[in-house]
């Protein structure tokens, strides 16, 4: 939470991803209550229906679940489920755009593979 909303993505997608990030970073723990849609709406000054749309996507993916009359909670195993989902999406989110940009610059696949092989681990600048 507490990130700043941008224009590049739908607001409800950003709400969804912020909750996911917080689960991955242990800001929100499994079996813990997440902020209500009204709390999210107030925090970001957005329409509660939009906040609810983001939260409901996470319910559909079984990352959150609803306790009647109490609120939304982080499901057991949510953290692993988010990591898995993002791993599956990694190709679409990163590799595809990497290949497209490389192609437009005339960088061959072999060169790309070499660059990756030579890149330092864990994102430290070389």
């Amino acid at each position: 939470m507490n990130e700043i909303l941008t224009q590049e993505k739908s607001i409800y997608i950003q709400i969804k991803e912020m909750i996911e990030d917080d689960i991955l970073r242990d800001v929100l723990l499994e079996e813990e209550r997440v902020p209500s849609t009204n709390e999210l709406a107030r925090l970001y000054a957005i329409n509660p229906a939009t906040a609810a749309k983001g939260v409901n996507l996470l319910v559909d993916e079984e990352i959150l679940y609803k306790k009647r009359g109490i609120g939304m909670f982080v499901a057991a195993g949510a953290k692993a489920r988010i990591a898995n989902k993002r791993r599956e999406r990694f190709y679409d989110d990163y590799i595809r755009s990497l290949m497209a940009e490389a192609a437009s610059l005339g960088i061959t696949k072999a060169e790309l593979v070499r660059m990756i092989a030579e890149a330092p681990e864990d994102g430290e600048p070389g």
Partner: protein
Amino acid sequence: MSILSGKGITKTYGGSEVLHAVDLELEPNKIYGLIGRNGAGKTTLLSILTAQNPATAGSVTLNGEPVWENPEALSRLCFSRELGLLGGSSASAIKVKEYLQVAETFFPHWDKEMAEHLIKLFHLDIKKRISKLSRGMQSMVTIIVALASKAEFTFLDEPVAGLDVVAREKFYRLLLAEYEESGRTFVVSTHIIEEAADVFEEVILVNEGRIMLKENTQELLDRCYHVSGHADAVAAVCEGLEVRHEERLGRSRGATVLLAPGQSLPERADVTVQKMSLQKVFVALCGEEEEESV
């Protein structure tokens, strides 16, 4: 659950028609944004919906009952107008305090406590005459009347005009808090579209006396894209899609695309596809087409 419904609303001022048979249905428990260019007919539409102004033709009903000269229906409607428009009229000569007293007698569900709280919150000097207030302070009065009216359907005409960015944000939070608590319906007209877009569940776009669209804000934004790149590539991507606004510069072309349900943009690495803000969508839909540069 109340429904406020306008059918075939037409308004003529001195021979020129400013609203052309407008149909509009407002549901309970929603925040609507009303956007449109100057002179599009927004204020006229709001004043007719709240029976402050007679329509030349057409009807406005609350749960099927006409609102015109209907005290029961009128007690559930509030049109908090833009005070800057009063100009030198006698209404602007009265003090804020007196204006709020009139509002208190006019709105049967008036929340005096809330009005007093908001006066303090905005540091408003109620002994001043309306005409002597700054634009921003006049907007604060508009906001106080709207929120404290407690009317089921509340219309705010340009409530943030002249307010600084901190006060605007304060207003949106107050509006959301009141909405959350009361489930009232609000219709907010504004020219400051960018920051208000996230507050509106639905957007009503008025253009040249007609409602161009009324749609869930997020769903609208989800189907609007800006496509740019080499003109040939952009043309190929836009083939068969609804293109609403184009810019060209040399071989480069940019286009606003509105996808219909079920449509998607073909994937191509050589064009840039961007999401659009509500403000950009508005300009693409209502702006005049630019002259093609030669």
